[in-house]
């Protein structure tokens, strides 16, 4: 088998083109999440970014990860975000005060970090090429991941359930009011608690 028959980045297959397009969509939606002035729009752009990322996983034949991405991130996390926006009475229209004073510094740090990561990864894997047919040999199937999860990775998996329990308790501590009237004076709040 010659090297040419295995393909290379110079002659992309259909799957690879789809992968790159989905990547562009993810990146563009992610930029819109942090630049839009409407909170609800930001949450909806997040749906696009997460969905396109799920598509990327699917093209790489990581089926289970792709569907988990759709169910958990697109399904649960974004819905939770939207509920959060709704329940905190955040403004629906454009907000002008979303950008902090540190915006230029944050942009510089983000762009620099992304640049370094992309450079290093391209440098490290420039010569590596795995045809997608080879990648789709079942490595991303639910069966493979399940077997790995419940054998090799069973301890971190169980530790994660402990983490979720701790988060649940914490959420109850921070939100449940056991004594006293309902929040009638919430708007008056913010008094200095140093007395």
């Amino acid at each position, binding site marked *: *088998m010659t090297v040419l028959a*295995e393909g290379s980045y110079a002659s992309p297959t259909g799957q690879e083109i789809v992968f790159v397009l989905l990547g562009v969509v993810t990146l563009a939606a992610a930029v819109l999440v942090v630049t839009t002035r409407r909170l609800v729009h930001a949450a909806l752009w997040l749906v696009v970014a997460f969905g396109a990322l799920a598509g990327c996983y699917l093209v790489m034949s990581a089926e289970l990860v792709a569907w988990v991405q759709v169910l958990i991130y697109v399904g649960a996390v974004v819905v939770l975000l939207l509920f959060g926006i709704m329940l905190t009475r955040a403004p629906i229209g454009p907000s002008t005060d979303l950008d902090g004073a540190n915006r230029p510094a944050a942009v510089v740090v983000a762009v620099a970090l992304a640049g*370094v*990561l992309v*450079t*290093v*990864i391209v*440098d*490290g*894997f420039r*010569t*590596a*090429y*795995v045809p997608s047919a*080879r990648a789709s040999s079942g490595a991303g199937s639910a*069966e493979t991941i*399940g*077997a790995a999860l*419940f*054998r*090799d*990775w*069973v*301890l*971190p998996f169980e*530790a*994660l359930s*402990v*983490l979720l*329990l*701790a*988060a649940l*308790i*914490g959420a*109850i*501590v*921070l*939100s*449940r*009011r*056991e*004594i*006293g*009237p309902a*929040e*009638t*004076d*919430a708007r*008056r*709040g*913010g*008094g*200095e*608690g*140093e*007395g």
Partner: protein
Amino acid sequence: MSLLASAVLAAPAPTPDIPAPTIEYGLLSPMLLVFGIAVVGVLVEAFVPRAHRAAVQMPITLLGLAGAFILTIVVATQDITPASGQGWGKLAAMGSIGIDRPTLFIQGTILILALVSTFMIAERRTDEGSFTAQAAATPGSAAEREGLLAGATHTEVYPLVMFAVGGMLLFPASGDLITMFVALEVLSLPLYLLCGLARRRRLLSQEAAVKYFLLGAFSSGFFLFGAALLYGYAGSVQLGAIARAVRLGPGGQYATEVYGASGQFAQVTVGSNALLMLGVALLAVGLLFKLGAVPFQSWKPDVYQGAPTPITALMASCTLVAAFGALFRVFYVAFDGLTWEWRPMMWLIAILTMVVGAVVAVTQTDVKRLLAYSSIAHAGFILTGMIAADAAGLSSALFYLAAYGFTTIGAFAIVTLVRDAGGEAGHLSRWAGLGKRSPVIAGAFAFFLLAFAGIPLTSGFIGKFAVFQAAIAGGATPLVVVGVLSSAVAAFFYVRIIVLMFFSDPAPDGPAVVVPSVFTSAAVALGVAATLVLGVLPQSVLDLADQAASSLFVR
């Protein structure tokens, strides 16, 4: 009917068996007990009436921590030989956990220090305890006042502390980066929450919690980036496999283990040194953040000041031990072959941490912020021991961590006792003349400060001596010079506080010293005793640390 039943029974196609994982429950028993007690604590919250919860939670938490400590000793006395046949220890739970002597020493230290911190959490005589009545109430609202009047307190603190301690036990024992990341989150998340539960100065406390959470999430992101890059380089997240890949050089691991199956990609070189170096750097950012090493220290003063003081004590002692344990494991096991590459980076960070911690502390006026900067400087001293990168460095750091943990808990316990109308008297000027009002408390605090400064006959001196000796033996003499100089700067402000307490007149409206219950008294007494014993007769603990460090971490 029976035909149908047999058809139903026969219906499922024979599924391929997954071989059951091997879990060494005996070796994991300290962690399992701590997590189990945390779950029991959650059940207590659900079923025990509010009035009795604290009385139930406190003993089971203390018993759980003591039991886990005993289990740690039981594990340590067993004879466990690793697969390599030399040393002591084992990779347990499918390689997710490395149980070895340094890990057991670290776990034992964490459990004892957590026990002493829990004494402070259990204290109710100072202002009904240090925790808020209702975290959900807006600071200053009527709901908050009613909660205070009803004498409520958050007993969920106990299971949350146990979750955090469980994560701290898991963190330095992690055999791979995934487990380490999960452990990092298990230990951090309850701490983020606990930081926001202070009884007084609610807004400061909530600000501390949000700051710690956001910066902690940021640093976890760096840890994950680093882990991903290292996976790209080594083809595995196991610390031992990363060490093998480092020895083989770029691409070696892939050629043999990943692409080798089909053979046709065996010549492909993947990975580069840049990938490895950036992976090391990003992983180090995530770990050094938890220690509060400069330049990742900015959260520490704010969080230490805002958090309830018992939780500050827990973070200053146990979290520091756990974070150092994980840092040591990663750098001694996975990056063993890279010592020459990471050492200059650690030199710089150790110097910055010692100098910034000592110099900025001089300008502080709040006692909790001062202790936070002191903790930053001490992290720098311990990093000095790490730079030796050998068993002596590890041993000295283990001793230092144990000694510093007791001293810092004792110091924070005294901070909870010196109170005025607004809660703890944080401002240093309020501590003027304390030695004339309550000489015992002021004397104990002065003793802790002398230990921080590293005066002979305290554990601080022995600890500093041990790490500096290891660093000189490891060829880091300039670093030791910087360390001694910053110790001298630090000693200046410790002595200044002692002078303030004993040689200035107390203000007429000065703070009162609360007479504590047996819990806080025990925390202070244990702190004084440990500081004195480890300073005068340190040999047995030094030997224990030597013995723990001599077999290094299991791979």
